[in-house]
């Protein structure tokens, strides 16, 4: 198909792009409108990256581009010339899962699984951001600069807020992240309400 387009060159808006995906060089001839997400899914048979909203509102399409997490649905493939893209398919080493993938399985960091590739790519990139000492909106004072941050639960939730999980597996996602980030695999900090608390919370 791609060879035919190249030969006939019938698309006035066709573009060519060469990039590295999961350590493999790939060259594509595409309609200029093609998003990186569609290039991955429809042209390279890399279906791990998911299309949720296709409008930058859910994070399911998150990939790691040149070391940074980005949304592949709002990235035009044309802009990716020379880029180095890492998708969920590129995280495992042969049969060995990435520690973040293992932690998601162990802690049940999903239910339906549709947001999971995006969640995991996002979480893997966040590990590096924490090492680099990046700040977030909930950082107490951005003027305090240090590396190798140990992120609190509030920090983790804020920094992963770009990945929506409509099954609501957030508690387990945070636990999975904590285990890899700070070797903290204790039970979550939240507890079920006691009977007394339930009673007093009822409207009178």
């Amino acid at each position, binding site marked *: 198909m791609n060879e035919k387009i190249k030969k006939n060159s019938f698309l006035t808006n066709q573009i060519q792009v060469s990039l590295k995906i999961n350590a493999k060089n790939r060259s594509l001839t595409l*309609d200029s409108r093609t*998003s990186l997400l569609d290039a991955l899914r429809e042209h390279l048979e890399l279906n791990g990256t998911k299309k949720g909203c296709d*409008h930058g509102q859910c994070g399911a399409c998150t990939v790691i581009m040149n070391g940074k*997490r980005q*949304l592949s649905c709002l*990235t035009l493939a044309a802009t990716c010339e020379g880029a180095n893209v890492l998708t969920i398919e590129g995280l495992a080493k042969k049969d060995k899962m990435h520690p973040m993938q293992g932690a998601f399985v162990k802690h049940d960091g999903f239910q339906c699984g549709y947001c999971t590739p995006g969640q995991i790519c*996002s979480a893997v990139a966040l590990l590096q951001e924490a090492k680099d000492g*990046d*700040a977030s909106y909930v950082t107490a004072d951005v*003027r305090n600069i240090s590396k190798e941050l140990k992120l609190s639960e509030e920090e983790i939730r804020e920094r992963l807020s770009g990945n929506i999980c409509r099954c609501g597996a957030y508690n387990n996602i945070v636990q999975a992240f904590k285990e890899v980030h700070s070797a903290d695999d204790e039970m979550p900090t939240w507890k079920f309400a006691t009977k007394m608390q339930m009673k007093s919370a009822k409207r009178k």
Partner: protein
Amino acid sequence: MRPFTYTGTTNRNEALKAFTTTSHYLSGGTNLVDLMKEHVEQPDQLIHVKNLQYNGISKNKDGSYTIGAMRSNADTANHKDIRLYYPLLSMAMLSAATAQIRNMATNGGNLLQRTRCPYFFETSMPCNKREPESGCGALNGVNDQHAIFGYSDNCIATHPSDMCVALAAIGATVEVQKVDGGSRKIDLEDFHRLPGDKPEKDSNLEPGELITHIHLAKPELSNHYAYVKIRERSSYAFALVSVAAGFQIEDEKISKIGLAMGGVAHKPWKLIEAEEFLLGKKPIESNFGKAAELAMKDAKPFEGNRYKVPMGKNAIVRALMQANNIGE
């Protein structure tokens, strides 16, 4: 999405030369690509400018800083000097969108992001901003997210940026490259427009002008700062109301101050009267309350957004209190 030709370049003159009136410059694309998918924007050509060499952050002789238009929001907010000397800007930028989007979005693009008014996005609805003279759906429609200051009958949309609110508080100048090769500087206050009878124009940029730099005022508000952003969920949402507050204290009195609001007008809304009131006053809650009253006294809300008046007052007081107490 309507077909378009794509022009990628690393050369400024090539980018300017390629420009036609039906072209758009493309930087991070987090807003433009979405609007193209929605058929709100339908350019014939995209000129990719993100790889132009306007991505530095540098200190000027007078101690002020210049940030490149093509630098990502994430890199800017996390730059050591921006965190130290412009913490208000850093905090505001970090409150916006998500890590993924901040990695893509650029400073120049942030200045030019378009309103999130639902009538602007929904092409079956009237919207003077999207389609001049088609009417304003929000004026008598669902207007809970809309402006309370500076609007006109033609448009009651708000400007969505957090970065720009902090820039308005700090003071900044936007440098642009003109098509004929010259450059000019626009004060941030004159960069964005009120809707008036031309709501389709968000800014005073001329066609083809390319943003290259943002020059920040001298870092004189870094001791006390806070960006308070009120939204419908605690993260990943646009502001209902936001407040950028930065000030310095000398002899127990406020000696310098910058105050601006987001989510309330068609442009970042600078609180000049409140700033003037607080200069020389003690940083105490009663003074902050009076300043907030002054800031909101001319608010003219709609049926759906009356809540923004008390919310705005409270947010101003909270931002000033938070700024006063920071680091303690």
